[in-house]
């Protein structure tokens, strides 16, 4: 019997499922950042708003990168539905904490796909995901740097305005 599956698809089918789940997570991140951008806009924190618009765009790019990887390799990528996006926050600090937590979750999720890819010897997917491992380190560092500003400068009055201005250089 021919190995028809291998002729049609060059990644493991179970890994493809996990990558489709990852597409959903990236799409959710993108929407979550958009909601954060909106909150910042409403509260006059223009640089932070700008920061989250850009993050939102990046998450969409991540999503598309995975999307194309699946389709280019003979799999089927599914357009994600996004549910339960958080719009209510108490402070800018809370937003950046939520952003860091979100990035940590994404990092864990990427790592677990890599482990699984290793287990089923899907080197193509493992190699593809290397880029995401690096990217996640950078994203976590970004959020951490902003949170350090809060530790340094506090959260009230003028400090908030100063932090917002610093965000544009991060």
């Amino acid at each position, binding site marked *: 019997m*021919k190995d028809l599956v291998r002729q*049609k698809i060059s990644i493991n*089918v179970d890994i493809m499922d996990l990558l489709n789940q990852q597409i959903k997570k990236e799409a959710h991140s993108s929407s979550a950042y958009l909601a954060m951008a909106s909150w910042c806009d409403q509260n006059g924190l223009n640089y932070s708003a700008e920061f989250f618009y850009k993050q939102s765009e990046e998450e969409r790019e991540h999503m598309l990168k995975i999307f194309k990887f699946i389709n280019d390799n003979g799999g089927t990528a599914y357009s994600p539905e996004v549910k339960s996006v958080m719009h209510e926050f108490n402070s800018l600090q809370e937003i950046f904490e939520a952003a860091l937590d979100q990035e940590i979750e994404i990092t864990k999720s990427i790592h677990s796909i890599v482990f699984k890819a290793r287990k089923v010897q899907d080197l193509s997917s493992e190699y593809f995901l290397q880029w995401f491992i690096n990217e996640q380190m950078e994203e976590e560092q970004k959020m951490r740097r902003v949170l350090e500003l809060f530790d340094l400068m506090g959260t009230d009055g003028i400090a908030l305005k100063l932090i917002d201005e610093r965000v544009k250089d991060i």
Partner: protein
Amino acid sequence: MNLLYKSYYYSSYQCDNKRCFFVDFGDKPVKLSFCQLLALRQKVNSIDLNAHFDSNSNSHGIEILTLCNREHILILDTLQVIDLKQLIKSTFGMLELHALVAQTI
């Protein structure tokens, strides 16, 4: 044609000559490309079986599936859904097994 798996109601085949798959749904055999087989797998896997045992979410215990870009329609009861889930899981399991065997020979 190579039989991949036979469950209680259904069976799946791979056809080397036509480079495609067939699923026999009892009353009709359906020809599927690999992409279409993947799509069927996705649909079957995403059926929530628990909903069949909850009269609020799926009171009739019926599932309607369309195949191959809505060329075919399937109406399944709970037992058939369970059986189809088994068929899909085992079919892909067999395909993986064949690949492994081919690799070692």
